[in-house]
């Protein structure tokens, strides 16, 4: 197990290098640079800006400098946020995005798993149909549409919740719910399918034949086994939620990293783009590793060595 983890972490370095190389190339290939503004800057200004940010150097040197910086823990500076350090910007936005993501994830699990289980246990009953109906609706409504609906009903009409911003519990409710619905629907359908499959397994029938109580069968044998596919989808969902949603963060004015990353791309803020992409790659790889380890914890049959 330890060897497996070390191996994976070593591969992570290779992955990060490739990701940074591809991002760097793509970033410089797309038309338009950071100094292309609606009011054209004087050529002297562009020259000074290029010099200031090292963009006057050959592209390969720029990439080398960037990698050198990373090795010293320096993700560079942002051009669109007053020369602030990219590391600082990410560290300021991350707790907000991560909190929102974790709340949304817990919400998705709390809605998804019970709904999916209930639907499977009472297959073809009204509970099942209701669950399928809800998960279809939740899976089809885009988060921002739901977000706008929530704002109109809960803020504009009823004045119950603030429309956006960050800092209080009330401000998390709507964006977390808008973010949670899609993964909740997904998890519900996944749980339903895998539970139905597990219920038909021989060992469940054996347990029933042995006269074990239904509750024991469900908690000890069914739930645990039916969760393996769910963990597979929940892992990437968690990674996606934690890395932030530009649309939801923008709609609810949340100063998270999802919004900053997209703004960075629009502004061709090379420092911010590189820093965010590397951070995302790192986060996703790490969460996937955790998910793989989780398999082994949930299912003793899975071994990595």
């Amino acid at each position, binding site marked *: 197990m330890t060897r497996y983890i070390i191996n994976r972490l070593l591969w992570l370095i290779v992955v990060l290098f490739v990701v940074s190389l591809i991002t760097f190339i793509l970033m410089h290939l797309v038309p338009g640079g950071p100094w*292309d503004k*609606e009011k054209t800057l004087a*050529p002297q200004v562009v020259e*000074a800006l290029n010099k200031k940010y090292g963009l006057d150097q050959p592209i390969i040197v720029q990439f080398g400098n960037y990698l050198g910086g990373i090795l010293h823990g320096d993700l560079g500076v942002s051009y669109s946020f007053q020369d602030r350090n990219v590391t600082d910007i990410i560290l300021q936005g991350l707790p907000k995005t991560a909190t929102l993501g974790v709340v949304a994830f817990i919400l998705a699990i709390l809605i998804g798993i019970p709904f999916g289980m209930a639907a499977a246990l009472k297959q073809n009953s009204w509970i099942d149909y209701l669950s399928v109906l809800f998960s279809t609706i939740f899976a089809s409504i885009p988060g921002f549409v739901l977000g706008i609906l929530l704002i109109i009903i809960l803020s504009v009409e009823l004045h119950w919740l603030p429309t956006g*911003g960050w800092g209080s519990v009330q401000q998390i409710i709507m964006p977390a719910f808008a973010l949670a619905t899609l993964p909740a629907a997904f998890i519900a359908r996944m749980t339903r399918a895998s539970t139905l499959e597990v219920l038909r397994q021989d060992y469940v029938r054996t347990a029933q034949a042995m006269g074990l109580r239904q509750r024991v069968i469900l908690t000890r044998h069914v739930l645990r086994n039916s969760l393996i596919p769910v963990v597979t989808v929940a892992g990437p969902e968690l990674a996606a939620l934690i890395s932030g949603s530009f649309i939801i963060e923008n709609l609810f*004015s949340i*100063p998270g990293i999802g*919004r900053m990353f997209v703004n960075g791309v629009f502004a061709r803020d090379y420092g911010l783009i590189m820093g965010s992409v590397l951070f995302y790659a790192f986060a996703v790889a790490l969460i996937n590793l955790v998910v793989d380890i989780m398999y082994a914890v949930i299912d003793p049959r899975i071994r990595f060595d």
Partner: protein
Amino acid sequence: MVKKILTIFFALVIITSLIVMPACSSAPSGPQNLTVNIAGEPSQIDPNRASWSTERTVIMQVFEGLLGFNQDLSLKTVGATDMPTVGNGGISADGKTYTFKLRPEVTWSDGVKVTAHNYEYSIKRLFDPDLAAEYTSFYFNIVGGQAYYEAISATTAAKAQLHDAVGVKALDDYTLEIKLINAQPTFLQLMALWPTYPIREDIVTQYGATWTEPPHYIGNGPFIMTEWVHSDHITMIKNPNYWGDKAKLDKLVLNMTTDANALFAAYQNNEVDISGVPAGTEKTVMADTTLSPQILRFAELTTFAFQFNVTTAPFDNKNLRKALNAGIDRDAFINNVRGGVGQPAYSWIPPGMPGYDANLGADYHFDVTKAKAFLTAAGYSDGSKVPELHLQYADTGINPTIAQFIQQQMKTNLNISVVIEPMERKAFTQAVNAEQYTWAWYGWGADYPDPEDWLPQLFGTGAGNNHTNYSSAAFDSLCAQAAVELDNAKRLDLYAQAQAMVVDDAPVLFMFYRERFVLVKPHVQGLKHTGMDGDVPGDMFFANVWIQN
């Protein structure tokens, strides 16, 4: 009986006063807090470096310069005692040396006196190549400024020498002298803009790049920044040490909501006091009985147009450009696309500033017959003979609707086919700046209210913002004369001739002058808007605003 009459009389007096009093009195009442919204996190709030309206909104509350603007955009003294003139010795006879006398009572928010040395430091810093400030090129007429800014690869010693050679000098604590290369009649306007606001050398030296974070962000304006939660909000309070009339507000909060629908919802939920409305909802808002009395509309110094790349066929044909100008129904555009907000433009300089001429562009009022006559003069017997026209635009906001409108107008009115080409915003800007486009949507807003910012900048041969490739020796010569003409009437006349020339040559399809359309809560009083406000209407004069609950 008398008692009864008296009782009724007093009752009436009380009732009347209850009804009339709140409407009449306009004194501050209740908490004096104003919450507004800026369009996002400001990139720079360092006065030397700022260039964008979001940034200006922040800076204008915390700093002020030697000069400023009145509500009608005429100049006024702020940190200076007198407006320099040749008569009072503030401007030398050759127009190349300016001397400003400073008010000794002006202090920084920490109580330290504002001196001419603060201005000298700031203006010299503006030319520091390592700072790479974006607006510096406006000030290249200051002696030694351009040489210092361009010495980007020079040694530290050489840079220090060039820094000292910049023609800005504090003659004593309260006298500042600035030397220019050429006489420049608009120089005082430039001195009213944010890049020349004073800056504290001791603070910049001590805190480096973080000097713009509170509590180090020390200014001399009516407000003090106390909090900056990045990408979320900025909080300011009244500056108790402000030298002039102190702000009536106790607290000013600048939120940073970027989504127009979210901002509108926040306004309806009483979270902000001033808000725009999402594009396309203007008419709904006008029809809403609650919201319509809260609408504030005013003209802005911004003109929108479609620019032609006049060196590419078929836009190299002047009569074709004139035909397109006459063949478009601008009233329908404003009514259908802009929600009835804005004023049709038939020339370039907008109303509300020197140089606007309502009589220009008479040929471009919508008239299909006239347009077809221009088309014939251009050598096309019918619109279908005109090669397919390609229109580029940034695929954001309501630009797609604008492009579709012109496509439909050209087809219906002139039978000309237009292909519309949406582009990603930066890619579009780059294509326009590199003049690799044929026909593109764009707008121009005033940096300062003078034709100098509107004509040579955009239509002068090879000028930085001339992307139409328009080139006219006669136009260039008029602008060159105007640039150094110290007699203002003569100067404006030269620019009037230059503008008439541009309108006749039609390097752009003039479309409309922008109008601000915002909602203001009834409790916000004393808002003074101008045609050159930053992100928030009235932000040049927030110190005058009060809340009446």
